């Protein structure tokens, strides 16, 4: 059977050729692996390939296809892509672009400064809003070049989570 697995920014094609006891014969993006595989605990795998030992820890994400995965030194976000996930991804493509242009408050906080005004041209990386929450100050920056279309808040204003602060187009 053939599936796609997304790991951080990479999407890999996976083909399981054989799985018998601890023996797994599998292809990742065409590369063949013959492994000794043991599930040693809930969400903990030991894989030995050519005598190299891999200890992998999987933490379930929001659904049965998503995981946070830890190796010894790294952490990955992984998702198994089946037909349903592919369909949903193609539907979302349009709205993602809009999301890039609005600056929203991720958590409740306070607007410290707004160094831009409606109609102003901004460049990617330019600070649009300075926001304070949980005793830390953060700068929200424009994701791409554009013009400030709407400024919905004032300096000193307290805002709730998800409030749209500034729209850049």
């Amino acid at each position: 059977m053939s599936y796609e697995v997304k790991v951080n920014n990479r999407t890999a094609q996976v083909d399981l050729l054989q799985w018998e006891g601890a023996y797994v014969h599998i292809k990742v993006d065409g590369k063949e692996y013959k492994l000794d595989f043991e599930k040693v605990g809930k969400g903990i795998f030991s894989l030995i390939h050519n005598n190299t030992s891999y200890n992998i820890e999987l933490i379930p994400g929001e659904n049965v296809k998503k995981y946070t995965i830890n190796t010894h030194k790294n952490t990955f976000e992984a998702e198994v892509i089946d037909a349903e996930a592919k369909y949903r991804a193609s539907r979302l493509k349009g709205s993602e672009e809009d999301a890039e242009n609005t600056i929203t408050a991720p958590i409740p906080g306070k607007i410290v400064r707004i160094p831009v005004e409606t109609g102003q041209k901004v460049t990617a990386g330019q600070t649009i809003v300075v926001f304070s929450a949980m005793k830390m100050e953060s700068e929200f920056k424009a994701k791409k070049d554009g013009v400030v279309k709407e400024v919905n808040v004032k300096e000193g204003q307290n805002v709730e989570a998800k409030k749209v602060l500034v729209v850049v187009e």
Partner: protein
Amino acid sequence: MANKVKPKGQTMIKKVLVANRGEIAVRIMRSCREMGILTVAVYSDADRKAMHVLYADEAYHIGASPSSESYLNITRILEVAKACNADAIHPGYGFLSENAFFSEKCQQSGIKFIGPKPHAISQMGDKITARKTMLAAKVPVVPGTETAITDDQQAIRMIHDIGLPVMVKASAGGGGKGMRLVKRAEDIESSISAARSEAKSAFGDDAVYIEKYIESPHHIEFQILADQHGNVIQLFERECSVQRRHQKIIEETPSPILTPKVREEMGKAAVAAARAVNYEGAGTIEFIVDNQLNYYFLEMNTRLQVEHPITERVVGIDLVKEQIRIASGQKLTYQQEELQQNGHAIECRVYAEDAANNFMPDPGKVTHITIPYGVGVRVDGYIYEGFEIPTFYDPLIAKLIVWGRNREDAIERTLRALQEFKIAGVKTSLNFLENIMTAPDFKGGNYTTHFIDENINHLLNEKDACADNCEDMVVISAFLEYLYRIRKASPKEMTALKNNWKDYSRIRSVLKL
């Protein structure tokens, strides 16, 4: 624990109310437990399931989640202290720890405040008064003004006397707030006006003072302990120059730049500063140091600090126990001559924030946490799996404190411990901290408070994907786990795969790593 008969004025504290939360509340309670002292937790709505509540002997609800209604609610906290017969309150850091009024109210209520007397707090809390006090004690201060500036023209004249660049600072401010850097003559007037109006709105007081701005500054602070009998000792320094927007991220001791001679001088100056205000308890004198090792008093923190564990590790003492003993009227346990710095310690503050997204705080539920272990590794935290980090307080998850026999060892060990430290469910600064450990300026011990700005590209680097097919193993693991999970619903197919299940009752932590 039986009450021992002690000389007059020395009654060991029996029950401590910790007026704080998070990691410091747990840390304080641990020392109390060791001393046989009962602990009382106070908690807000958001903290009902917090570790300090679970850990304490008694717990009282004090109010709604916002700090002003709970951890800053003096009336409510004192009510609880009286109701539970606490004979002492430990304020931790932040919140009410440097509130002279609170210290006063405790005194009036007959409850020991584990910290200095109100006058010491107010004297050092007002930055202009603090400077004057230090000058009188012959402690070097940053060249600057001696009195509050209320007149813009006066300020401009003083700036010309001191020489640019200067910092305009709020007298009622502190902790990095209410400050403006002025580099050019043309910016003087606007900076002073802006600083004064900011000070007015933030602290209700528009008095400002001017200090020379030290280029290439190092932030080096000294820990002191003072008892009620006039004994004061200094427990050496902490180098805290790795800061982002005046928030410390990494602290280490000993400082990589101090010489034994300067260290001794600064230690003496720290003791003199504490004596000048008849200090009692644990405190910290902050200095700013330039590349020529000229040092100047910056401010005094009249409380226990976040980074106190690195001093504990290198000097070999428990500062909270000393605070409790001092508050109980005992003499200091240690003499200056017996104190030494042994080895090197580094502390990393692990924050729930997204470094890749302008360090936005990222509160939420922690779905998984793996704490690093090994020789010389200490973690002061309070988060457990399933705990929801609230949005109302600061996003500090844990402090990783590492000891090594020298600086190089400590850095290697810190890097290893950071790699082992796994937290899922919220974004954390772990990756950012690892990049600090590998930055050449940090490894070389050659950095100032500009370190983060100067190295931001290296620090924001995503980690290299693991080598040697490791990423493919991750892909494979995700896929195989997915197969296990979807096949839970259809055991027939499971048997067909001929899975090899291990005994699920094996203790999980033993099998990891």
